[in-house]
């Protein structure tokens, strides 16, 4: 079993806490002049995204988590699993709905996604910062209608709903920022 000592702690290190794979967000060395030294760490649980704080005595060891992040291409869904592929090795990974989380609304075939694997199982999927998606449905924009601040809702091909300028029409390809769900621009199709 691989372990890390507290003096190896740093941001991004993957460790097992209470059986869950976690990533160290921040590590603070604490040492009262005359006292025991500690590591006070902020840790993100990679399964549910929750951040907790934990204190370790300096020099203690913690189990390492076999977590890797890789870029995989989205292929298709069979309704139960979402299938991704490593473009170099052609290896496929099946991702469950819970691991996929909110990313399902940004999934577009053949686009690259950041997939986190723990013991070779997918536990999280991050979309690229920007995706290009087609407008599936939006009402026609009325000329001079600025009551809504000049924007209207549009449903994209993946089901995501974003606010777009009034001039956007159904069938157009849009560039969207997945971090906040904001419309960026028309995509040059």
């Amino acid at each position, binding site marked *: 079993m691989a372990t890390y000592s507290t003096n190896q702690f740093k941001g991004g290190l993957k460790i097992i806490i209470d059986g869950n794979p976690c990533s160290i967000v921040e590590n603070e060395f*604490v*040492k009262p002049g005359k006292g025991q030294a500690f590591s006070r760490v902020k840790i993100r649980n990679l399964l549910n995204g929750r951040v907790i704080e934990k204190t370790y*005595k300096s020099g203690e060891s913690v189990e390492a988590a076999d977590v890797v992040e890789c870029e995989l291409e989205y292929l298709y869904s069979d309704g139960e699993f979402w299938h991704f592929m490593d473009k170099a090795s052609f290896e496929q990974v099946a991702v469950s709905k819970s691991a996929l989380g909110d990313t399902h609304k940004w999934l577009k075939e053949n686009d690259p996604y950041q997939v986190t694997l723990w013991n070779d199982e997918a536990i999280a999927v991050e979309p690229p910062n920007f995706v290009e998606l087609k407008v599936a449905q939006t009402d026609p924009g009325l000329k001079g209608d600025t009551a809504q601040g000049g924007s209207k809702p549009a449903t994209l091909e993946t089901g995501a709903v974003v606010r777009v300028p009034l001039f956007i029409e159904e069938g157009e390809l849009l560039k969207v920022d997945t971090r906040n769900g904001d419309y960026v621009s028309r995509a040059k199709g």
Partner: protein
Amino acid sequence: MSTQSWRPSAGIITLQARAKLIQKIRQFFIEREVLEVETPLVSHHTVTDPYLESLQCQLTADSSPLYLQTSPEYHMKRLLAAGSGSIFQICKNFRVDEQGRIHNPEFTLLEWYRVGFTHHDLMDEMDAFLQLILQQGAAQRLTYQAVFLKYLEIDPLSISGQALADYALKHGINDPGLDAHKDDWLMLLFSQLIEPKLQAVTFIYDYPASQAALAKINADNLAVCDRFEVYAGGVELANGFHELTDAAEQRQRFVDNQAKRKQQQQFVPALDAHFLTALEHGLPACAGVALGVDRLVMLALQQTNLASVLSFDFQRA
């Protein structure tokens, strides 16, 4: 290795400001006729403190181990016992495994001793010193008990170790394996819940007798000792004592330290015979304090980490 990692971790302007502050520190003591001394960085002995680890080195492959000092305290007290009068020193010290935002394994201490001073006299002098260096107003003074009551509503002298563990859990601090060891819990809670609130210069005094280290036990209250610490900007800055002069009691504290280190399965250093013999010869009544110079400079220059005031931090050393 980045192509920029040869560069200093502090800017040149910061190093110029640091040099000015060090000059100011020297001037403070020269004006008060306190003698500047230098003592060895490499010693045949090291401290028995349960939570201090010294770096070992050797002169030749087959010689016995030597130790880089964790503080100049024992050598300076030997000078005092030999009749030096009041002394000060600015020197490097080394502590194993102490690395972080406000820790560097090699760091600079200012340590000074005042013959005939009590720790209260020394706090007065320290206050004047910090007003000069940090350009701030007079410090506030609180007893250890008062600061716990003020911020945590806990009496640190009467509470049990288990009650402290329960309190910590309620405030989001898990037990890192301290069991019910009261002093360890007090120090952890202090560092996590009180220290960040001590932004203005604050003296904490009357520490529990169990945390006396090299301080006298208080003559009027055996539950506390004549030790103080200084905090500013949420950082521990200095530790001072009305110095223990009783050689027999000092020896007993060292033996207790050795027992604790043995129990913790740590390296157990031999007692420093030179130091104990000097105490037997007679240490004049005095008070002394050690202050982290790098941290002081960091606060004076409104920085938030040590690296930014060190020419080269440990990563670049």
